[in-house]
């Protein structure tokens, strides 16, 4: 990169220096100016079909589409000159000729680029008096619904399916004013990454069937998080309304998922709202689980663990912080920590290097391994010895033969829900799920990524790091000072060589690589 020529130019009076080959649109972004655009998307090949990004460049005879024009030395660019504004106003007027005025019932309203730019630069009224074109809606399969009338033919979806997903299912059908987005007749948008066209669509033409009519864009609270669907650790945004997660969207991160999120990940958020949660700590009294306060439950757990070996089956969906404190419990009791991970098919996104729905369907597999938990997918309970205390941390062991659990002298369940198929546990500690607490996950490339709290936890539920810190203290491994996720992470970075040098400040919201991590290392 060192010998790339740098170009100096002026955009709206601001001096900008960018590498040679940058487009004017991208250069303007560095100067804090967003040139309105529809067909351009940084993750897709440039098409230059919408003509919305026209800007005036001095000494050029005509207005230049800034998404397809490279910067030149000494250029003077006017984004908001009268000529450019007039041209873009004309483009908007033409786009709105057949665009229905159905913003009140359109799911995109509030996050619609057509709405935004029309409000910024468009005409206040329409001069078009003729009847608008009407086409029926079309179900594109998968999660995608195509509302033909709203389409502005930017072809972002076509280019995504052709060049990024490399499954050419969509095309521009018909010509002239009858043009619409067409789908291959024998195919549906059921490809593993196809629903990204919904996010790419700048208007409400491609909408999610799952989110249809559920909430308005401006009512949502957005929280930066990490997808828990697989070990890729795609960055996402959890969008909630009234403490209920209603949608999951990708959050762009050049190092992990670019702009994309797979269908399996984006539709897997309902469990975060599940109502059948354990909401109070419980201990077993006369073979029945009775609600108690947290302190009593910790004491009971400590009493059970005294002099016994803790056999911990941890979930690879627990955060690094939680697993780190859980490790203290294991070390203190001379126990053993194992985990199991659900596996599935691997679905790569061909157009993006190193991005796939991974076979390991849990977010923190690498983190659990780094923290000394042994992976046993087939029979995690094999190492459970007679008389051990079985600790199920966030794990419900679905679909396994759980008869081995009778070997345990006692069972402690620390999780969001009750575990079926095991003898009545002695202690149940309710912890928050990923949407209700803060923490970090380590993805399969060793990238430690933070997730934030998106909703409030029900009942007396405590964040997992909180519960594990208190449990560690109760069994004798003093963790009284572990009172914040950032503090726990600092302690983790100090005592685990793999995490050395990392802190919440350095990893930020884009993640930080652990020591010795290289692409493809794991």
């Amino acid at each position, binding site marked *: 990169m060192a010998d790339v020529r740098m170009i100096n130019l002026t955009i709206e009076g601001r001096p900008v220096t960018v590498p040679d080959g940058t487009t004017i649109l991208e250069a303007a972004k560095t100067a804090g100016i967003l040139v309105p655009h529809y067909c351009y998307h940084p993750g897709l090949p440039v098409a230059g079909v919408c003509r919305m990004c026209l800007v005036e460049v001095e000494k050029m005879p005509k207005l230049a589409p800034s998404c397809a024009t490279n910067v030149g030395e000494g250029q003077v660019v006017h984004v908001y000159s009268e000529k450019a504004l007039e041209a873009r106003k004309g483009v908007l007027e033409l786009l709105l000729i057949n665009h229905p005025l159905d*913003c*009140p*019932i359109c799911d995109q309203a509030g996050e619609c680029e057509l709405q935004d730019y029309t409000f910024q630069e468009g005409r206040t009224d329409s001069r078009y008096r003729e009847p608008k074109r009407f086409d029926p*809606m079309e179900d594109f399969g998968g999660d995608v619904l195509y509302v033909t009338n709203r389409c502005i033919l930017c072809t972002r979806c076509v280019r995504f399916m052709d060049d990024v997903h490399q499954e050419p299912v969509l095309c521009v059908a018909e010509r002239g004013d009858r043009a619409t987005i067409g789908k291959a007749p024998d195919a549906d948008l059921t490809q593993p990454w196809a629903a990204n066209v919904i996010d790419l669509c700048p208007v409400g033409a491609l909408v999610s069937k799952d989110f*249809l*009519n559920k909430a*308005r864009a*401006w*009512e949502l609270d957005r929280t930066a998080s990490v997808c828990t669907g697989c070990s890729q650790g795609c960055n996402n945004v959890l969008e909630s309304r009234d403490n209920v997660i209603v949608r999951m969207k990708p959050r762009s991160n050049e190092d992990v998922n670019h702009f994309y999120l797979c269908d399996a990940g984006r539709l897997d958020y309902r469990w975060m709202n599940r109502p059948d949660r354990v909401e109070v700590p419980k201990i077993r009294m006369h073979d029945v689980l009775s609600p108690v306060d947290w302190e009593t439950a910790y004491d009971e757990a400590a009493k059970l663990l005294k002099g016994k070996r803790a056999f911990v089956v941890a979930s690879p969906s627990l955060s690094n912080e939680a697993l780190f404190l859980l490790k203290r419990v294991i070390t203190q009791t001379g126990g053993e920590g194992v985990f199991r991970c659900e596996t599935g098919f691997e679905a790569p996104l061909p157009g993006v290097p190193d991005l796939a729905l991974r076979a390991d369907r849990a977010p923190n597999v690498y983190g659990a391994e780094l923290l000394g938990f042994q992976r046993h997918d087939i029979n995690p309970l094999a190492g459970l010895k007679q008389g051990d205390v079985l600790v199920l941390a966030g794990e419900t062991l679905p679909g396994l033969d759980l008869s081995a659990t009778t070997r345990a002298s006692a069972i402690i369940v620390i999780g969001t829900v009750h575990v079926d198929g095991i003898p009545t546990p002695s202690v149940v500690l309710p912890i928050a799920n990923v949407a209700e607490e803060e923490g970090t996950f380590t993805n399969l490339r060793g990238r430690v990524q933070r997730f934030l709290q998106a909703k409030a936890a029900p009942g007396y539920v405590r964040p997992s790091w909180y519960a594990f810190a208190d449990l560690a203290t109760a069994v004798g491994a003093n963790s009284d000072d572990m009172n914040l996720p950032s503090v726990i992470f600092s302690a983790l970075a100090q005592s685990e060589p793999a995490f050395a040098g990392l802190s919440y400040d350095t990893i930020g919201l884009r993640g930080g690589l652990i020591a010795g991590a290289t692409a493809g290392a794991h």
Partner: protein
Amino acid sequence: MAITVKVMERPIGEASYVRATLKGLALTLKHLVDPHRVTIQYPEEKWDLSPRWRGTHRMLTTEDGTAKCVACGLCPTVCPANCIKLVPGEDEEGNRFPLVFEIDEFRCIFCGFCQEVCPEEAIHMGRHYENAEFNRARFVYDLERLTAQTHPVSELWDPAHPRGE
């Protein structure tokens, strides 16, 4: 020592009440025969409300009797008192409609923003003022009640004016 009281000597014309009484009776008599009356015989007679009067809401309906509302969410967004609760839903034909639409008339400040912002001209302020109820819960008007209202609606702008739609 004896207390002496000073007695004021006043002319009879000032001290007499006869004159003032007659004056008062004359005024009463004048009002008795005067046709100009400001008192309204409520509830037999009702006050004539201004066309811009902003009273409790009314939801207008389409020809088939369902609410015009498409649950766009603009009224709960614009409402400064946060008194509108709206949960959007979808009917069998895939049209948006309000699953829940409730207005807390106690919390409402009757600003009329909801009527102004409504793109479907569904929610309206009403020209109506008799709202008494026997309990507080009855002041949360649900969709059924809002559509069942029959009183005239407020005209926030003059329909005859070129910019008044």
